[in-house]
């Protein structure tokens, strides 16, 4: 069988939405992408492809860290086999293209769950490692990389796959290594024990920043999962809700991966994310959270962990221009003043922000070289396309985040400057030394060249 590849995505950001498969989740920026599907983990790889290769999973990275730089994407999603489950020790070995959703569905009936899951179940095991993802349980569990026991990595300069274990320098470079150290064939992770497919869900509201920081430490420590939805108001006001969860047992039919209930069928017009529409949505969502606050509720684990997965192609609400997510973390101590100040700046500039989310990151250190989480407050903000004004503002915010020792999440980034990147991730040169010479991403070229 020949290994021809083909262009899937047209060249401009505006048109990238025609094939959502080969654009990133934020759909900005868009570049032509060649795709090579990897059907078996040991199939030949197009290492000598002009422009290099880049491993690619389900494309849930928002910016250009999942886009090739004129080269070829190696789509590993067909390599999704679950190879071994040790139900006593709680260890799962799977191919890199297996989704965390598929892993969760296979292990839940045995009383296990992936140790860390992000807001969507549609991420691959390889992507979870490469971005060292975090979840609502960062306080107690740390990031995904803390639970990886071994990685089998294919490199262009090695004839056979390399087996990596914690402690190896190449292992540390691969955790959070945004796919640059090689193509992950398979990996073994340690699962988390759960009583069943249920979550006891609670909510608590807050009405000011002091209120938020006053409650946050206790709320985060007392519950396994915590995430905070909030609406920043004018003049530094804020209101929001903690959504807290603790694993619980539940009926067996909650084990199965739920089907979706809808799809955004086409790109919505800009009015869908206009200021009033966003304010209305944020208000309705917060009211729903506040209503839930009254008493603890037993809910299925799937929608609790992945509230947006019910609707497919939800990124289309931002229209064809796509959107930017700004996801940053401010270290504990500085967060009490800097997080409110940054949000006040955004409000002062009249920028529209959709679905703002906060999380408290805990002290568990990741083995990864370029890991994002550090102890402090993490904030994720979705910005519909707002032109150059937005880019200038985010550059300004980058400097403030770096000044207080924080950083911005690579998996969400489409625009940070090389200078900002090097301040956020001072160990980047170590990753560059471990990079496979045949692997290149648009992000890496942008921030290191």
């Amino acid at each position: 069988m020949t290994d021809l590849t083909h262009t899937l995505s047209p060249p401009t950001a505006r048109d990238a939405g025609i094939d959502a498969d080969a654009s990133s989740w934020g759909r900005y920026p868009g570049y032509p992408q060649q795709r090579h599907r990897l059907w078996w983990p040991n199939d030949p790889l197009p290492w000598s492809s002009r422009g290099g290769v880049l491993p690619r999973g389900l494309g849930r990275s928002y910016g250009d860290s999942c886009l090739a730089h004129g080269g070829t994407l190696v789509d590993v999603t067909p390599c999704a086999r679950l190879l071994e489950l040790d139900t006593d020790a709680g260890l799962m070995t799977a191919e890199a293209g297996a989704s965390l959703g598929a892993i969760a569905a296979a292990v839940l009936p045995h009383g296990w769950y992936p140790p860390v899951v992000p807001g969507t179940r549609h991420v691959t095991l390889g992507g979870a490692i490469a971005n060292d993802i975090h979840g609502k349980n960062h306080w107690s569990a740390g990031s995904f990389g803390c639970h990886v026991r071994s990685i089998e990595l294919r490199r262009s300069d090695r004839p056979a796959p390399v087996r990596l274990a914690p402690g190896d320098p190449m292992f540390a470079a691969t955790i959070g290594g945004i796919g640059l150290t090689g193509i992950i064939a398979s990996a073994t992770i340690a699962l988390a024990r759960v009583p069943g497919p249920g979550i006891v869900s609670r909510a608590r509201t807050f009405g000011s920043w002091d209120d938020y920081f006053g409650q946050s430490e206790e709320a985060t420590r007392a519950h396994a999962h915590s995430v905070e939805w909030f609406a920043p108001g004018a003049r530094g006001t804020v209101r929001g809700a903690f959504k807290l969860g603790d694993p619980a047992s539940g009926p067996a039919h909650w084990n199965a991966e739920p089907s979706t209930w809808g799809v955004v069928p086409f790109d919505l017009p800009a009015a869908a994310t206009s200021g009033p529409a966003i304010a209305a949505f944020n208000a309705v969502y917060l009211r729903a959270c506040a209503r839930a606050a009254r008493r603890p509720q037993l809910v299925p684990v799937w929608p609790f962990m992945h509230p947006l997965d019910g609707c497919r192609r939800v990124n289309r609400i931002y229209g064809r221009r796509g959107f930017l997510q700004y996801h940053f973390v401010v270290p504990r101590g500085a967060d009490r003043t800097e997080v409110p100040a940054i949000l006040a700046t955004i409000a002062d500039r009249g920028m529209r922000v959709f679905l703002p989310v906060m999380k408290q990151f805990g002290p568990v250190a990741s083995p990864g070289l370029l890991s994002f989480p550090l102890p402090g407050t993490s904030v994720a903000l979705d910005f519909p396309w707002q032109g150059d004004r937005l880019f200038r503002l985010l550059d300004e915010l980058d400097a403030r985040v770096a000044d207080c020792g924080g950083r911005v999440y690579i998996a969400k980034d489409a625009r940070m400057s090389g200078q900002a990147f090097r301040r956020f991730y001072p160990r980047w040169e170590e990753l560059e030394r471990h990079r496979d010479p045949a692997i290149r991403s648009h992000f890496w070229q942008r921030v290191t060249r």
Partner: protein
Amino acid sequence: MTGTGLRIAVFGATSALAQAAIRRWAAQGASLVLVARDAGRLEAVAADALVHGAAAVERQVADFSAAARMPDVAANAWNVREGLDVALLAWGSLSDQARAQRDVGYLAAELEVNFVAFACLAEALAGRMRAQGGGTIGLIGSVAGDRARAGHYAYASAKAGLDAYARGLRAACRPHGVHVVLIKPGPTASPMTAHLRPGLLWGTPEAAGDAIVAAIAARRAVRYVPAYWRAIMFVVRLLPDALASRLKA
């Protein structure tokens, strides 16, 4: 009919469509016999089925290129659990039409693997299922079999032959409680089609897996995958030859 407790054999178990169906049957708790040519790949597919919840998985290595061996292939799969409730025949080779036109040995081999071996294995299994008093045989055909065109008639004619064979076998088996389900996928992203440029109407192995499992559970006679191919091929079959032969392949 769900897969719980069913004895299911899949021939050509490492094909992309077969893997998707196997995963679903495994999650339903079926007992599987997986038959394929490549032992290494078969091991990965079998491991995946076990983790997804299969009650038991038996691996058998076999080559589908020689029709004369099909009675043995059927017997080996049958004997694992003294019978089979469901058999899926899912291997395939997308013949190189240009080569088939100049290399008669290749043409004969392609027709054998894509049609003769299918018919022989289906017949061997049907005989056993009739004696057993029931069962379902799923055959992976193709929309290509509905209308042969210049670009791929070696492959299409084999699938057309399979279509006719399935029809006859279905009629012969029905009185004995044995069902024959012909699945006709449109072009699907898979290793078999990796050298082709995907178009708008292409399906995914995952959707095909859902459709295969559902069609076999419902004992459908013919299932197009995705379902819109039924309408497309209805129109394509109505085209007069004089017009159809001018369409690009």
